């Protein structure tokens, strides 16, 4: 058993760190303690020093640079990084699990026993023989967690481990972390940019802003701290927390206890507050239908003869100058559908009818595959000859997307949000009429998502048509005009975004789930803003 007394397992005292050649410190005067057995969330916007701090805690990964003050870690550490695939070294699951233990020089019998134990704990016995390349991103990340935990570290450090996963895998991964914490009492230190589900799980939060500790305390008080301040990071709070606060503000009822962090608590509070408000006015549904720019009829597709069909009669109508979101789970055929719409793949049967003369542009999921130059500006200039554009256009689009400060940056050094915007900029320079985007907001933090959503809305208002496939329901609700649900190779529902999400119970936005049955017609954060105190007239 682990030592149960609350002695700090990590202790930082006036800890500063500066990267070589940089004038400003990446971490400034950090002083904090982490008690053994705690689950600490390191929160903060991109570039706030989360990764630097986490790496400084792991001896083997300490970044090179100038250290001041002290940080003491009392125990063995294990480290899980963001990218599921890059962390895997060996070719089979069992061998990946054995890798760390082999490095420690353990006897084969001991390794065998640990593999058995760990595989059992994680419930992965049935894929122990599989080649790692056949695993999905979510499965890979579970393997990374398992192959780190198998080395029996006292402290498990996780650097945005769910950023590249789809929502279902995120939930599964977080459940596993929760189990590890509850059942083994290990100390967990995790950085994350999404707070939903996480905040109610952890027992401490360290909030970094610009390399400084801006907050250190309990998750409940952290939510309160964010709600009271107008920081961009506020957007990361769970919808449940934000919805309750919005109603409290509007009705003038101040909260008795700490803010609600999960859906049940939020719904209890909303039931008290809702009678004090007027339900929001109904949003006019009527949107004139526009001209059809692309129509897919009864698409059937399989990758090879003998393989199962991925699409089984998917039909879709895309209207001009609108944003159309196709949502669906893993393996529902979303990417395949997009490839068929673009003409990259041909359907086995069925037809894609495009209005003649329109130019189509597609962004695939790995935008990294698009970049080859050493600097962003050169990258965007790459296709100037082919696309018939010049320096002016590139500078213009960089300014428009807020990328002007990054002209000399290597594309790989951009943040998730910046990479997507850069890729979109590169696509737009070729002036397509129809943009097809595959999971454009995967791995983005909330603030970047909002910006990206605004970008797309502007494009649509300028007459571009956007089709995006995504897992992200909240993003779809805030961005799209029309939503389609792809399930089992077919489009099973297509509706305007609002009625679409109102019509679903489980497959809907966070706001809709929190307010369902209490306040009608709340789909997005913007809807909440329309709620007025009872008796108050606009």
């Amino acid at each position: 058993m682990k030592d149960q007394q609350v002695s700090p397992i990590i202790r930082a005292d006036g800890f500063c760190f500066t990267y070589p050649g940089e004038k400003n410190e990446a971490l400034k005067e950090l002083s904090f303690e982490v008690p053994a057995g705690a689950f600490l969330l390191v929160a903060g916007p991109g570039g706030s020093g989360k990764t630097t701090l986490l790496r400084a805690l792991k001896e083997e990964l300490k970044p090179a640079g100038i250290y001041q003050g002290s940080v003491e870690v009392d125990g063995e550490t294990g480290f899980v990084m963001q990218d599921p695939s890059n962390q895997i070294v060996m070719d089979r699951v069992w061998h990946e699990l054995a890798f760390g233990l082999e490095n420690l020089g353990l006897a084969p019998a001991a390794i065998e026993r640990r593999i058995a134990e760990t595989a059992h704990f994680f419930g992965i016995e049935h894929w122990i023989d599989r080649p790692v390349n056949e695993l999905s991103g979510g499965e890979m990340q579970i393997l990374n967690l398992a192959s780190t935990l198998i080395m029996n570290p006292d402290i498990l450090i996780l650097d945005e481990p769910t950023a590249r996963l789809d929502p279902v895998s995120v939930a599964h991964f977080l459940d596993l972390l929760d189990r590890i914490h509850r059942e083994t009492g290990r100390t967990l230190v995790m950085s994350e940019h999404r707070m939903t589900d996480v905040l109610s799980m952890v027992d401490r939060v360290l909030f970094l802003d610009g390399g400084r500790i801006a907050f250190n305390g309990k998750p409940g008080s952290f939510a309160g701290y964010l709600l009271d301040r107008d920081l961009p990071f506020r957007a990361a709070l769970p919808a449940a927390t934000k919805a309750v606060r919005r109603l409290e503000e509007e009705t003038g009822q101040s909260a008795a206890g700490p803010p609600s962090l999960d859906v049940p608590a939020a719904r209890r509070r909303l039931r008290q507050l809702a009678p004090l408000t007027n339900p929001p006015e109904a949003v006019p549904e009527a949107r004139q239908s526009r001209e059809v720019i692309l129509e897919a009829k009864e698409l059937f597709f399989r990758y090879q003869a003998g393989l199962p069909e991925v699409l089984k009669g998917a039909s879709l109508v895309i209207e001009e100058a609108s944003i159309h979101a196709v949502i669906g789970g893993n393996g529902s055929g979303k990417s395949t559908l997009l490839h068929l719409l673009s003409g990259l793949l041909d359907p086995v049967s069925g037809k894609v009818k495009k209005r003649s003369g329109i130019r189509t542009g597609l962004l695939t999921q790995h935008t990294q595959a698009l970049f080859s130059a050493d600097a962003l500006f050169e990258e965007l200039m790459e296709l100037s000859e082919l696309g018939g554009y010049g320096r002016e256009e590139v500078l213009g689009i960089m300014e428009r997307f807020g990328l002007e400060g990054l002209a000399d940056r290597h594309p790989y050094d951009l943040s998730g949000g910046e990479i997507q915007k850069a890729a979109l900029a590169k696509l737009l320079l070729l002036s397509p009429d129809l943009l097809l985007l595959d999971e454009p907001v995967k791995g983005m933090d909330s603030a970047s998502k909002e910006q990206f959503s605004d970008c797309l809305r502007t494009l649509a208002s300028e007459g571009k048509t956007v089709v995006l496939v995504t897992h992200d329901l909240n993003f779809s609700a805030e961005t799209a005009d029309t939503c389609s649900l792809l399930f089992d190779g077919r489009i099973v529902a297509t509706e305007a975004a609002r009625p679409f999400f109102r019509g679903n119970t489980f497959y809907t936005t966070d706001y809709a789930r929190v307010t369902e049955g209490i306040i009608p017609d709340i789909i997005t954060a913007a809807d909440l803003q329309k709620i007025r105190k009872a008796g108050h007239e606009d």
Partner: protein
Amino acid sequence: MKLKDRHPAVILFFFAAVLVLTLSTHHPAIALMSLLSAFLLRVRLAGIRKAARSLPYLVPMTLLMILFNSLFNDRGLTVLFSIRRLSVTLESVLYGLVSGLMLSAVMLWFQSYNNMMDSGRFLALMGRRLPVISMMISMIFRLIPESVAHGHEIEMSRRALLGEPKGRFRLAGAIRMTTVLMAWSMENAIETADAMRAKAFDAGRRRAYGRIRRSARDIPPMAAMALFLALAAAGALAGGSAFLYYPFLAVPTRARAGWAMAGWLTGSAALFAVPFLADALSVLSDRIREARRQRADTDPFVTAMVPRIKSGGPQ
């Protein structure tokens, strides 16, 4: 128990012995036996359709061997026909045929070897002795499919942006693809190196772990194969494998004398048949177990508590 499920050393031993037997003599009987069993094993492992797919290149190859040997070798007394000064003899045709059969057999054996020994099994055999190489091979097997997938992705995103490449852009596209792939792989490799360090790779205590264990049940087949090989080798050394092509086809009297030829042929045939013997034995032992189980007097207290089981055991 099937040969495929045995320890990789057993499999390796079998294929090594079979190759040695096939190639150490140039005897028509061995060539035929080897080819027949190699083909049957291929059918057993890959199915008749896949096995038949090797015929379109094995048959021409054999014909080519016959052609070459009969054209460039005019030894032998039985002249079949003559073209100008070139006489084609029965002996040289037969010699070419046997060479072709041997070569075909070897190729079929190798196909089955690949089927039975995937990279994991081979590594299990090498792992202890060559830890660095076995680890490198494992990492390579991880990277190859990933790089192929990345290359595909790059190509797709490129075509998505620009359509089908044309003219001089095609070459430019290929060069660019290589550049992107290199940059991408290198970027990923940095993270992989970090992950390796995070898992104590630098500790310098590495000790390879293989998942395949030696087990006592591998001894009988190993012993049987050694026995068959010894019998064949003794017979061959006693002169049982002698066969003359020139000046005319003949089995020398010393070969026929005594046990030499019989021992050599029996040993070889038995060895070639090992995979099928293993199959047959496994079926047989299942039958015996089944029969025994039905006859066995199970403790009435056990049977009383067990729901009635149909044949095929619990579950």
